[in-house]
């Protein structure tokens, strides 16, 4: 299974909660947030552009890092 790996400039739990909420609101996503490393791993039916746009709604810097195979 491949997951999309994103960088999101999160600094605290408020940030990761905000990311959680915008992704829940989008729907159709499975995701893990790695707050210390500022990474978000997403498995979704949506394309990368949609996901990146959604992450950027939090007002934080975000960028796409690539595919990552998850265990």
């Amino acid at each position, binding site marked *: 299974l491949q997951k999309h790996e994103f960088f999101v400039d999160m600094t*605290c739990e*408020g*940030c990761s*909660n905000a990311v959680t909420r915008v992704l829940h609101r989008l729907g159709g996503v499975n995701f893990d947030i790695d707050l210390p490393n500022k990474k978000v791993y997403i498995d979704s039916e949506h394309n990368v552009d949609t996901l990146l746009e959604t992450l950027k709604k939090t007002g934080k810097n975000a960028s796409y890092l690539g595919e990552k195979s998850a265990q």
Partner: protein
Amino acid sequence: AKSVSISVEGMTCSSCVQSIEQHLGKMNGIHNIKVSLEDKNAVVIYDSKLQTPVTLQEAICDMGFDATLAD
């Protein structure tokens, strides 16, 4: 210009505050915005031809925070 106070839940630190201030500050018709972590609110001075309390509330919700209008 009109002023509205919006309750904001979910902010945990000053970077949460900053991201809301920066993001709303970029919207059209916003004259001034002051977000308080302690008071859990955002006081926005806006042009009522371009924004309404609801559009401002939605903008904060879209960022992943829980925003409500006090009446």
